[in-house]
C-alpha cells in the first residue's frame, strides 16, 4: 500500500469519515439540526477528490483515452468510468439528504444514524463502481446493502420492519448464491481479479477440463443472480414492492437510484472486463432477464393502488429497459461503428432515470408527508392543492413513460438503437410494446391528480431544502431531454475505458 493508493481511494475514505463524523457529532452535541448540514456539506470533500482525480486522468493523456489507475494490486480501478459513477452517487446522495429535511420529523431519535447509514452505504457504492476483484466486489456489495436494510426498517412501523426484514433475508440469500458463484469461478480460473479471469478464460480450452466450461457458466449465472437482486431485475424482484411501500420514502429514493446505478456499473464492468469471452452466453441470459423484467414489472404495476408500490414495479420495468443496453454489448458486430452505444446508453439511461425517479419520489415525499397517505386515490385534486409539486410529479411520470422532451425519451432511443444495431430487434420490440403498456398506469396517476375534485383544499407544505432538491431534479429531467449531448458525451467517454468496448 503506497500513498498513491490512499490518494486514489480518497473519495471513499472521505465519505466514510463523514459518516463517522455525523455519528460522533450526535454523541457529544444535541444540535441535531446541524446533522444534515454536516452530511451535505461534507459530501463536497469526496466530490472534490473525484474532480481532482478526473482532472489528473485527463491531463495525463490528452487523447482522452485514459486507462485509469489500479489500486491495491488490482482490487479497484480509478478511471473515467468509476469517476462518472462517483459523481452520480455523490449527487444523488446530496439530493436525498436535502429531500429528507421534512420527513425526518418521523424518526426524531435516529437522525444521526439515518445520515450515517446513508453515507456508509454511499461509501459501499463508491467502492462498488470501481471494484475489479471478486472479494472487493463482495465486501462493497455488503457495505452497500446492510446500511440500506437498517434504513428500510427505520420507521419502526410494522410495514417498515417487514420491509427491512425482507430486504435482509433476500439480500443474504442472494449474497450466499453469489459467493458460491465466485468460488466456482475462482476454482476454475485460479484468479479473483477480473483481468485474471478474462485471461484464464481466453487461454484455456474448455474441452480439456471436465465440466470446466459448465463451472464457469454456472459460476457466472450465480453471480448474475446476486447482481440481479441489486438491480431489482426479475426473477429477484420479490422484495422491491414491499420495501418500497414500507421503507421511509427518502430511503426509497436513495435505494432506487444510487444503489441501482452502482449495481449497473458493477454488472457492466464485470461482464465486459471479466467475461467477454463467454459473451454469447450472457447476452442471451441478460436479454431474457431484460424481457422478463419489463413485462412482469409493467403488468404488475397496472393493478397497483399505492403509489410507492407502483413506482416499485416501475423500477423493475426500468431495470429491464436498462438491461437491454447491457445485452446489446454482447451481440455487437466488430465492424460496427456503434459498438459502444450499448454501454454508453446504459450510463445515459441511468442518469436520466435518476433525475426522473428522484423527481417523482421527492414529490411523493412532500405529498405523502402532508396527507399521510400513499394511496393514489388520495392524490385526487392534487393539482388544485399544489400546482407546482403536482406539475413536478406529472413531469416525472411523463418522463418515466418516455415521452419527449424528457431525459428518458432520449435514453430509450439510445437503448433501442443499440439493441437494433446489435441484432436484438426482438428485444427492442418487447421494450417498445412495454413502453406502450406503461402509459396506462402512469397516466392513471396524472388523471387522478388533474381531474378528480376533493373537499380538502389545504396546501402541501414543503421547506426550502426539499424544494431545492425537487426543482433541481425537475430541471435536470427536462434539460437532459432537451440537451442530451452533455451527459451523452460524458457517458461515451466513460465507457471507452472498459476493455473490449468501442475503441479498445
Amino acid at each position, binding site marked *: 500500500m503506497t500513498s498513491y493508493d490512499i490518494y486514489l481511494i480518497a473519495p471513499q475514505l472521505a465519505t466514510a469519515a463523514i459518516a463517522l463524523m455525523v455519528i460522533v457529532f450526535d454523541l457529544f452535541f444535541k444540535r441535531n439540526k446541524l446533522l444534515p448540514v454536516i452530511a451535505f456539506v461534507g459530501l463536497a470533500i469526496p466530490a472534490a477528490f473525484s474532480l481532482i482525480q478526473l482532472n489528473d486522468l485527463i491531463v495525463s493523456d490528452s487523447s482522452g483515452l485514459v486507462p485509469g489507475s489500479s489500486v491495491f494490486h488490482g482490487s479497484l480501478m480509478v478511471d473515467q468510468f468509476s469517476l462518472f459513477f462517483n459523481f452520480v452517487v455523490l449527487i444523488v446522495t446530496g439530493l436525498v439528504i436535502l429531500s429528507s429535511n421534512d420527513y425526518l420529523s418521523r424518526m426524531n431519535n435516529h437522525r444521526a444514524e439515518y445520515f450515517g447509514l446513508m453515507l456508509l452505504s454511499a461509501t459501499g457504492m463508491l467502492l462498488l463502481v470501481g471494484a475489479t476483484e471478486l472479494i472487493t466486489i463482495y465486501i462493497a456489495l455488503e457495505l452497500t446493502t446492510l446500511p440500506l436494510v437498517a434504513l428500510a426498517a427505520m420507521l419502526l412501523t410494522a410495514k417498515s420492519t417487514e420491509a427491512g426484514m425482507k430486504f435482509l433475508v433476500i439480500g443474504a440469500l442472494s449474497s450466499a448464491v453469489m459467493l458460491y458463484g465466485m468460488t466456482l469461478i475462482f476454482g476454475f480460473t485460479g484468479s479473483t481479479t477480473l483481468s485474471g479471469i478474462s485471461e484464464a478464460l481466453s487461454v484455456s480450452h474448455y474441452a480439456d477440463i471436465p465440466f470446466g466450461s459448465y463451472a464457469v457458466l454456472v459460476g457466472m449465472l450465480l453471480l448474475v443472480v446476486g447482481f440481479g437482486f441489486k438491480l431489482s431485475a426479475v426473477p429477484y424482484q420479490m422484495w422491491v414492492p414491499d420495501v418500497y411501500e414500507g421503507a421511509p420514502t427518502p430511503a426509497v429514493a436513495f435505494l432506487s437510484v444510487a444503489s441501482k446505478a452502482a449495481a449497473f456499473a458493477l454488472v457492466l464492468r464485470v461482464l465486459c472486463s471479466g467475461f467477454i469471452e463467454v459473451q454469447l452466453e450472457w447476452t442471451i441470459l441478460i436479454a431474457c432477464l431484460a424481457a422478463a423484467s419489463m413485462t412482469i414489472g409493467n403488468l404488475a404495476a397496472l393493478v397497483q393502488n399505492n403509489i410507492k408500490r407502483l413506482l416499485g414495479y416501475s423500477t423493475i420495468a426500468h431495470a429491464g429497459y436498462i438491461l437491454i443496453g447491457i445485452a446489446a454489448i454482447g451481440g455487437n458486430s466488430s465492424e460496427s*461503428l456503434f459498438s459502444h452505444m450499448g454501454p454508453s446508453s446504459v450510463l445515459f439511461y441511468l442518469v436520466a432515470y435518476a433525475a426522473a425517479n428522484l423527481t417523482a419520489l421527492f414529490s411523493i415525499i412532500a405529498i405523502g408527508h402532508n396527507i399521510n397517505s400513499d394511496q393514489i386515490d388520495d392524490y385526487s385534486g392534487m393539482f388544485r392543492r399544489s400546482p407546482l409539486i403536482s406539475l413536478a410529479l406529472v413531469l416525472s411520470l411523463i418522463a418515466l413513460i418516455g415521452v*419527449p*422532451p424528457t431525459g428518458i425519451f*432520449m435514453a430509450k*432511443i439510445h437503448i433501442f438503437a443499440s439493441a*437494433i444495431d446489435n441484432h436484438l430487434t426482438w428485444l427492442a420490440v418487447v421494450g417498445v410494446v412495454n413502453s406502450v403498456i406503461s402509459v396506462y398506469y402512469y*397516466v392513471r396517476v396524472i388523471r387522478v391528480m*388533474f*381531474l378528480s375534485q376533493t373537499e380538502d383544499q389545504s396546501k402541501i407544505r414543503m421547506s426550502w431544502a426539499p424544494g431545492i432538491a425537487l426543482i433541481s431534479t425537475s430541471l435536470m429531467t427536462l434539460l437532459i431531454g432537451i440537451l*442530451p449531448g452533455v451527459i451523452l458525451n460524458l457517458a461515451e467517454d466513460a465507457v471507452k475505458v472498459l476493455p473490449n468496448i468501442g475503441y479498445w
Partner: protein
Amino acid sequence: MITGFNGILSVTVFLPALAGLLIWLVAKSDRQVRVIAVTAGLGDLVLAGLVFVIFNKGDGADRYQLVDRIDWINTDTFNASYLLAVDGLSAPLVLLTGLLGFCALLASFHIQTRVKEYFVWLLVLQTAVMGVFTSLDLLLFFLFWELELIPMYMLISVWGSGRKEYSAMKFLIFTILGSAAMLVALVGVFLSGDLKTFDMVLLSESSNRLVAGGMVLPISMLFWLFFIAFAIKLPTWPVHTWLPDAHTDAPTAASVMLAGVMLKMGGYGLLRINVGLFPDQVKIFAWAIVALGVISIIYGAIVTLKQTDLKRLIAYSSVSHMGLVLLGVGSVAVSGERISSVGLNGAAMQLFTHGTITGLLFLCVGLIYDKAHTRYIPDLGGLANRMPFVAIAFLIAGLASLGLPGLSGFVSEILVFLGTFAAFPWPTVLAVFGIVLAAGYILWMMQRTLFGPDLPRFSTLSDASLVEAVPLVLLIISIVVVGVYPAILTTVFESGLNPMVEVMNGLTNDISGTLITR
C-alpha cells in the same frame, strides 16, 4: 446540407407555447387569459400567413426555405439537429395550422371551468403541430409529434363531455402505439446506411436514398412501421376507432384542432416520410395503400349514414375523406409512363381543404350544441330560421364537404381521382361511389337539422355572436377562395412534391422496372 438561421419559423412554432407560459405565470383573470391567448393566436396566424406569402415557389428557388438550423446533439455515435424549414408541402399546412389555431382559440370563449389551464394546453398543442409541419429532422419531428399527446389528452378528459375519460385514454393508447412503431422505424433509419443521420433533407436526396442492402432492419418493415404510425393518426380503417370517440367527447376547439390539423399530421407524415424517404417502397406497396384507402372511403361513408350524433357523423365522414389521401398516395404506382404529381397534389390538397371544411363543420356543430344543448339529430330541426348565419356556414361547409364544384373540397377530390385513375382504374371508380354516399349523408343531415318545421323548444335560440362569427367567416373565405382559385395552393404543393416525383422517375429509369430486386 442546408444551413442558416432565419428565425421566422422558430418564432412561429414557439410563440403559442410562450404565450401559454405567460398566461400560466402572469394572467390573473379569465379576461386576461383570453386576451393573451387570442393575441398570440392572431400573431401566429399573421406569422403563418407571412411564411406562406414569402415562400418562393418559382423555378430555381431553393426547395427548402426559411431554414433554422442549430446543432442539437453531437456525440461520437449520435447526431441530430434542430432543423426547421418549409418547402412547398409544408408551407400551406403551416398556414392551415395558424388559421385553425386562431379559430379554435376564438371558439373557446364560452369555456368557464379552469380557463387558464384550458388555454395553456390549447396553445401548447398548437406549438406541437406547428413543430411537426416544419421540422425536417426525424428526431425533432418525433419530439413534436409526441408533444401533442398530453395537451390533447387533457383537453378531452377535463373539458370534454360524455365518456370523456374513456375516450381520452383510448386516444392516448392508440396514438402511443403508433408512436412506438415510429420510434423503432426512425431508429432503424438512423442506423442504416453510412450517413447516420436523422436529417430528412439528406435522407430524401436520391444519392443517399435508403436501399435494401444497407439496412439494419428490412426496408419494407421500416416503411410499414412509419405507415402504421401515420395510418393511426390519419386515421385509416381498421385503426380509426379512436377517432369517433375522441371527437364526440372532445370540446369544440379540441375537435377543430383534432380534425383540422392533427389528422393532417398523419397525411403529412405519409407524404414527407413514406413517399419522400421510401420512394421505391411506396411504389411496391401502392396497391395495399390504395386498398386501405378505398375501404376507408366506402366503410367510413356507410357508417356515417347511420349516425345520429352530429359530431360522430362528422368524425366518421373524416375517416371516409381521409381515405382520399391514401388513394392519392397510391397514384405513384402508375406503370410505363412518367409519374406526375397530380395524385400526390390531390392528397396534399385534401389535407388543406378537409382541414378547413371539417374545422368549419365542427365550429357550427359546437355552436348548435352550445345553444340547443343537443347533438342528437332526431331532436333537432328548423334551426335555419333561428340561427340563419350559422345555418349558412354549416351549409357551405357541408356542400364543400360533399364536393360541390366552386368550393375547395371539389378541387382535391378531382385531383386525387385524376391522378389515381391512371394507376388503379377500378378502385378509383369504387372510391367515387363513396363520394356519392357523402352527398347522401351530408344533405340528409342538413335537411334534418337545419330545415323542416320550426320547433317551439328552439324558439329562444340566438344566432352567432361577433366573436363566434369571426372564425366562421375566416374559414368560409378560405373555402371559397381555394375553390374558385385553387392554383393559389396547388402551385405551392407542386413545388414541394415535384422533387419527390422526380426522384421516383429517376428510380424507374435506373432500374428499368425491376423494382422488386432492390
